[in-house]
């Protein structure tokens, strides 16, 4: 058996992070968190996780901006990403349609909608880690 898989959760809402952490730790995955986009990027570069769970709506740098930057870097490009989103949200907060096309060739592994269904999240994570 290898080491426990490490999952990085990036969300500005502590209560949401707590929820995700509690759900995922039932499955013996190691969960770490970052409270905004910039911190999330730095954490991913410093110690690349096996999976990143990224909230879309965050101040300063939103989920899509973070996703874009992750794709730019050698060390983080191949890490699977699951986006957390409130329903119907497919466009980032600060990108125009043209910019979206530029990087949406690569899509996140999955979108998980809030309010999060715990078993739905676990399934999505299992699939992404496989």
């Amino acid at each position: 058996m290898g080491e426990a898989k490490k999952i990085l959760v990036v969300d500005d809402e502590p209560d949401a992070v707590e929820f995700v952490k509690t759900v995922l730790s039932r499955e013996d995955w190691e969960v770490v968190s970052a409270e905004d986009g910039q911190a999330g990027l730095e954490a991913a570069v410093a110690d690349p996780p096996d999976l990143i769970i990224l909230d879309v709506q965050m101040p300063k740098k939103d989920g899509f901006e973070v996703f874009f930057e992750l794709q730019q870097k050698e060390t983080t490009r191949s890490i699977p990403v699951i986006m957390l989103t409130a329903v119907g949200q497919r466009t980032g907060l600060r990108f125009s349609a043209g910019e979206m096309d530029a990087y949406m060739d690569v899509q996140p592994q999955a979108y998980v909608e809030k309010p999060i269904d715990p078993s739905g999240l676990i399934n999505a994570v299992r699939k992404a880690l496989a």
Partner: protein
Amino acid sequence: MEKLLKHLEREALRKLIDVSRTVSSSLDLHEVLTRVTHTATDTMRVKAASLLLVERESGDLFFEVAEGEKAEAVRRIVVPMGKGIAGWVAAHRRSLIVNDVASDGRFTGWVDEMTGFTTRAILCVPLLYREKLLGVMEVINKVDGTEFTDGDLRLCESMGSLAAIAIDNAQIHAEQVRSARLAAIGQTMAGLAHCIKNILNAVQGGSYIVDLGLKDHDEEKLVKGWQIVKRNSAFLGELVLNMLTYSKEREPSYCDADLSEISQRVVELVSESAQRRNVRLRWESGGEAVVARIDPVGIRRVLMNLVSNAVEACPDNGDGEVCVRADVRETNQVVIQISDNGCGIAPENRSKLFHEFFSTKGSRGTGLGLAVSHKIVSEHKGRIEVDSMPGQGTTFTILLPRRPSEVRAR
């Protein structure tokens, strides 16, 4: 004698011109109607005058402005359409002079009974504009005891027409503001829905953790989960209160209240979330009570919004500090200041603060709190000032008239 009459007519004409200037220069309906009524009292030299408006939904008349003896007492009275002289004039849309009310069957005297005033002679005109009845204006008891004349009637009707124009303008303006506000709410439904979904996510998350705690007999989980549920239920409560306040048209209900006490209470309520963020939140006393005529519920909403915002703007590394203070300033103003040493507001965002639903807070922000705060303070005829630079913290200063009814009546 004739010279005197001509002089009075010229005076009256001049006053009429003044009134028409007032009507076209101010959108504050109450202010305009107060001046019209005041002019009527002055020019016709009467002991009392009032202006009643038709309440849209019930069709009854209420006293919008009352001047002279027993004015305060009269303000709370509602006159059913058709009742008494004012009611008759409204129902028939015709002016009336009754120089001896006791001998006129239309006079009921019920308002006199309630106020202790004795009406002897009354002149009442309907306020009509484009076929619509907007209200009535009445003048009562000439000071020198003489009777009301046709000349008086014409003058009153002229003033009444001007008042009617002002009322119609103000009602149209109010409708436009209402529509704009509702449209804004519609546009922000998506934004609010996002915010609510995020809060809901946290409530469900907390419940999930409570369930685990119960299943595993794990008290730590139980406590943690319950805190999350409690906290987010409170957030939801705040959001709903803001939504309701923003969409309702309401006159503040004024009473004398101590702003120091209200600020202190708000600080207590927000202290729990401040503690969680390691932010030092304190209330400073100027030493004495800060009493003003305000709508305590509304002002509390404003303070809840601004103090919570201040706490959230602070860093969570322990350096954060928020200070709330209420003072009396000059003789007719009170001031409440909320200062934080948080992230500050960028200059390009300053102008958007109160005028749109604007927020930089990510999933929790709707901009509704600021919009609501602005609305409430405006209703109080006060204002909010912002002093802020990015990286240097922010101070919100709320200025309120100490006795807004006095500000209006002048």
